[in-house]
């Protein structure tokens, strides 16, 4: 079936099978930052934003995504290709090791900070419950999200 998907502010007309997930549709159209980790809703590496909320794209049929705004990691980078604060602080804090989980983790964090600009470390940890990382132990990633939250709040401007 044919779908018209809204991805990162653009429109994509694509042909999918009835049983395709959003993960299938995105990766089949070159959005390989959306990782095919477990395809079972456990690892979170396939997370994207749907209407601003982080969702495991392997748990969504492609047809369900039509009519919603989908954002992948490419969509959070500024028009001038400048890194989003979450991308920059993830690098600055040493939160990126193998990098496989990072696009999804940044999107999940972006969702959190949009709704809660001043999360505690416990809030951040709780919100990352669906994003598995086998490298870092999460400490530096939580540091990075705290740093990004401060930047987005404008704390550095005071």
């Amino acid at each position, binding site marked *: 079936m044919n779908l018209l998907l809204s991805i990162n502010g653009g429109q994509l007309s694509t042909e999918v*099978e*009835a049983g395709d997930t959003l993960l299938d549709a995105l990766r089949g159209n070159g959005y390989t930052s959306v990782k095919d980790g477990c395809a079972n809703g*456990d690892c979170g590496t396939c997370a994207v934003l749907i209407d601003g909320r982080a969702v*495991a794209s392997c748990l969504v*049929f492609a047809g369900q995504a039509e009519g919603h705004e989908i954002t992948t990691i490419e969509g959070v980078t500024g028009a001038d290709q400048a890194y989003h604060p979450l991308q920059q602080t993830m690098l600055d804090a040493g939160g990126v090791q193998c990098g496989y989980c990072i696009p999804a983790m940044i999107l999940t964090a972006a969702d959190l900070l949009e709704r809660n600009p001043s999360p505690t470390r416990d809030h951040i940890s709780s919100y990352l419950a669906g994003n598995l990382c086998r490298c870092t132990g999460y400490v530096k990633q939580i540091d990075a999200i705290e740093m990004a939250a401060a930047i987005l709040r404008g704390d550095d401007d005071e």
Partner: protein
Amino acid sequence: MSKPGITEYLRPDTLEEAWWHVEPGDPSLRILSGGADLTIHAPPEVTTLVDVGRVLDSTIQTMKDGSIHIGAMATLTDVMEHQDVAVHGSGVMPEMMVHVGNPLLRNFSTIGGHVARAKLSDVVPVFLALTAEIEYFNGADRSEPLQDYYDKGHHKEPHIVTGLQLPALPDRSAAAFLRFARTTFDFAILNVACRIDLDGDSVETVRIVVGSTPRLFQRAIEAEDLISEQGPTDTAIDRAGELARGEVRTGGGWVASAEYRSQLVEVLTRRCLGVVAGRLEAT
């Protein structure tokens, strides 16, 4: 990964059109709302999905009488974060919901789909403790207590869940939810949702709902009756835990034996009622 058995994806524009597909009760067809369950656990006979996302309401509204209406397409996150739901029943809904999967799941899973799937659940016992009503369409609009929906087997008949209603609670009302699981990610080995309403010094309503026994839920009626008669005193709460253990049938499996679950019934019921009693004192 594409689900190989799924060959047809239908997107009706009206409830009536959706019902036209659902009414025959074809076992190869499933209603798709959130989809988390179907993407992972679609039975092999399922070939056709009926996506009701365009048809059903996702809003949450507080009515003039204090009740709260939740559209079937509201996500678990919507329910968890809604300002009125969050304080309804002394905040039992977010207290429970935070244990359901993780944000990536809760952000797209719908309350209608969750209730209709009728499998192991932390959500259903809490809705039952709050004496929720369910609304569904089966050729006509229907509404009934959620408990009847399950007890009378209506959830197994062709229908489309359209919403849930949480009745208003009196000023002196409190609820609580407790669960026990091996890890954060696991389904609960057992859970308990309790609620007590007071009218002056007398007990007006008591609900003790035990879930994951591994049945979806069972009410501990004898324990409820005792608390109704004696109030939530320490002695009555201890005895209510014993009564609940005696009346709630538990089953065993690879996660826990029936006897282990039975002991959990007593402990969690006692603790849950204790939390409710403490919250009532604070009202």
